[in-house]
């Protein structure tokens, strides 16, 4: 397995270089260094001199990809692409274009993101699997039919509706928890209840339907028929056989998103005023802060690759037939 992991990590290197180059190209197709300077210097009284000075200060006064005026290797290294990328691969994110330390910001903002994402994932997973098992158990009945109808209806409703509706109902009409906000330590708890409930409810439709499909697929397999023929109760069939065998696709879906939990949710964090990483990237895009954008895209790519690797490893754990070599 070690050889497999090393091989996968080596494969990741060109992917990360590609992601970084693509981010760079896409960003600078839309924003020139002059645009960035104007955005950071504000809308009033911005002179050419101020723009030039800002670019020099932040290292955007060099050519983007190729420095014709330089000699030798400097033609490639004395460029914005190289200067801004090389430290990224050592996970040194440097300073944002507004002067903040990106690594420090990320280390602070990932905890609130995790505080919402982890309970939402766990509670959602437990609830959706339970509900899906119930639907599978009562398959073909009115309970199943109406369960699916409700799931489809819940899937069709925008996530924004759950957020605004939840805030209005629970925070404003019932006055049970704060509408939005965040605090540190144990005081954070009352701010997390509503976003977690909203997150779980928002995921019920799609999650339950997906797991129900997986369970029904397993339920019609030969080994399940054999188990029933042995006289096992439906309850045992479901929990001992169907659930265990449906775990592989469930794991595929869950493990791959685990690292991405750090990244947070833009909409939820924005509406609930949670100071997580969800809005960090979008704020950076709006502010044309290339340093943060590339750092977050890079981090997202790394986490995604880790997620895929973890998924592969988890296969071997849940299904002994799978070998990574």
């Amino acid at each position: 397995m070690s050889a497999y992991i090393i091989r996968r990590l080596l494969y990741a290197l060109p992917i990360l270089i590609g992601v970084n180059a693509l981010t760079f190209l896409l960003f600078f197709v839309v924003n020139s260094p002059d645009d960035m300077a104007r955005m950071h210097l504000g809308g009033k009284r911005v002179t050419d001199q101020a723009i030039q000075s800002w670019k020099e200060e932040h290292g955007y006064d060099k050519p983007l990809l190729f420095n014709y005026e330089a000699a030798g290797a400097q033609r490639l290294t004395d460029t914005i692409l190289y200067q801004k990328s090389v430290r990224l691969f050592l996970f040194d994110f440097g300073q944002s274009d507004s002067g903040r330390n990106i690594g420090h910001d990320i280390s602070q903002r990932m905890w609130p993101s995790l505080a919402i994402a982890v309970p939402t994932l766990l509670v959602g997973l437990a609830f959706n699997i339970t509900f899906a098992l119930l639907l599978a158990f009562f398959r073909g009945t009115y309970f199943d039919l109406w369960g699916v109808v409700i799931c489809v209806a819940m899937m069709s409703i925008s996530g924004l509706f759950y957020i605004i509706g939840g805030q209005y109902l629970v925070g404003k009409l019932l006055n049970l928890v704060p509408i939005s906000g965040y605090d540190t330590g144990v005081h954070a708890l009352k701010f997390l209840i509503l976003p977690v409930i909203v997150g779980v409810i928002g995921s019920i439709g799609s999650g339950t339907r997906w797991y129900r499909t997986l369970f029904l697929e397993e339920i019609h397999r030969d080994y399940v028929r054999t188990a029933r023929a042995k006289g096992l109760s439906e309850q045992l069939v479901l929990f001992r056989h169907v659930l265990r065998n449906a775990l592989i696709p469930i794991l595929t879906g869950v493990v791959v998103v685990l690292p991405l939990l750090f990244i947070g949710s833009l909409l939820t964090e924005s509406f609930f005023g949670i100071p997580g990483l969800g809005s960090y990237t979008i704020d950076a895009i709006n502010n044309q802060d290339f340093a943060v954008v590339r750092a977050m895209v890079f981090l997202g790519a790394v986490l995604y690759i880790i997620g895929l690797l973890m998924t592969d490893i988890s296969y071997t754990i849940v299904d002994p037939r799978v070998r990574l070599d």
Partner: protein
Amino acid sequence: MLPLALLLVVLIGGCGRQAWNDPYRDGQAAEPIFYSSFAERPKHFDPARSYSANEWAFISQVYEPPLQYHFLRRPYALVPLTTDGMPEIREYAEDGRPLPEDAPAAEVGYTDYILRVRPGIRFQPHPAFARDTSGGYLYWPLVDDVLQSVNTLGDFGAKDTRELVAADYIYQIKRLAYAPNHSPISSLMGEHIRGFAEFAQTAKLARERRAEEKRGGGWLDLRQVPMSGVQEIDRYTYRIRIEKKYPQFIYWLAMNFFAPMPWEAERFYQQPGLNEKNINLDWYPVGTGPFMLTENNPNLRMVLVRNPNFHGEAYPEEGSASDVAEGLLDDAGKAMPFIERAVYALEKEAIPRWNKFLQGYYDNSGIASDSFDQAVQFGTGGEAELTDAMRERGIRLSTAVETSVFYTGFNMLDPVVGGDSERARLLRQAIAIAVDYEEYISIFQNGRGEAAQGPLPPGIFGHRGGIEGVNPVTHRWIDGALRRRGIDEARTLMARAGYVDGRDPANGGPLILYYDTPAAGPDSKAMLQWYRKQLDKLGIELVIRATDYNRFQEKMLKGTAQIFSWGWNADYPDPENFFFLLYGPNGKVESKGENAANFHDAEFDTLFVTMKDLPNGTERQHVIDRMVTILRDQSPWLFGFFPKSFSLHHAWYHNAKPHLMANNTLKYKRIDGASRVTAQQAWNRPLVWPLVVLAAVLVFSLVPAVRGFRARERSRAL
């Protein structure tokens, strides 16, 4: 899941007498704390660099420039803040001969502003001032052990202060010129303060020399680099020498750019390792003001706490009769500030912000478009008033016409709509009539605005209201009210311009004009459609060229836009700050200035030069009237509208008078904590019964579920 959540809610909320949905920690509502929110993360708190309203809302409570605006007096007036009087202004001929006050502007070679700082003012407690027993600085240079143990400014154990002196103001003026500080006014001040540009060059060379020699730290001691126009006369007195005459300079002295900066603070922050922890001057201000920023977490919360070293200031005792009637002089003469702390929470979305205001958790609020009808209604006379629901809660409304203008401009370099030809002038006038800004304000601004008759908003010297202020090109004064001229008159102008029924004589088809806008989102669709309809009244086909803000700026800089909309928010209450937007040499294409329309009129430019140096009075009013007449006739702008700010505040929030120039108004606010607690408890009683019912329904629904489960277990396999 829901019963569990219910249990959690009851456990967390049920402890104590605090409302369950209270976002603050127990008992704080009764204290004199101001609660508010901010929507956009501030970027810079360095007074040399910060130039946005959302940043000034914080640092204006911390930094103190020499002057400030009187809180109650209107029109806006400057008063001393840290000086013992208004600056002494002396004019001299170029040869150094003193000139009388009424000397013609052309004779003035330079002007001296002499400012005397009040002795005894001290900076807020700050680690940069902390000293050890031997008198050395405790945190300079920083030792590794200390650096490892700190993560925020609050982690530095020792703090101290020192007296404010004239040198601190001089140091800050030098900072404005120092390129690495990226001050947005360095270019402007370079034109006015003597020796400013030379200083910038010398400091740049000194910096480069340091970099070559690789001498420790990034701090360049600007005290050692002289600036000829700024001099310390004695410990508390300094002089700023201005080239020729620049009467508007006094307004700059009320802005944070000219607030004092202790050199110790800049040296402290520039030590290696602190910036990596986001501990820098751009993030942690050091001032003499009534408050100090103790928590700076722009992703969550900003907290200002009363500065224990504040020099003290009394609430103004002078105000108008309406101020007396509104209770704005109830605190006259009392020592400020009245509040101990101000907590601003990050609230990006309008809906939760509004709901938390209604719950009493924010003391004041603006009004988003979505909530406007819920909060405000218009009376029979068109006056804005609160709805019954708001009045029942004791909420109060404050309105004020902003010192801003939102206009639509013509690019005067454009061959169709620009230039000084009669054809183009008539076309612009016709469009000025057709674009109905009264309708725009009603549809898109919820009535929050005033159709502009010229470039000067109310409250700025030179603005004329009523019949005297009518723009005869677009409006008439009928029965004591403004009436927009009819579309027929606009069509007549079109015909005179050669565009009969909006037809372009060049090709016989409809005249096609282009409107450039950065408003490309779906929210702007209705507005852009509205613009199209306005020109359609004249038979003109308006093509919308929506793009992103970067491309829009590029077009404006190159002069390739034809018609565009823009706005301006005044820096100071002087007509010069509006007319300069149309002064020829400030053309965007020519000099990348703020004259986005690239308007150039010889008479207007001459009058502008005269007007800017005149004191407010009859002569200046005459010049302004002529300038406005030229603008109306030439119509380089559709004057658009002056936005009106509407803000709401709760009954426990006192001394709320809108001030559109001053930002340091937190010190005037007073909070009645006891009333707030009562209201919050009354408005936020938790309703638990729906959850109990829900839990009961769930429990009862288990019965048929269990039955069904058992029946299923007993049934035959399918």
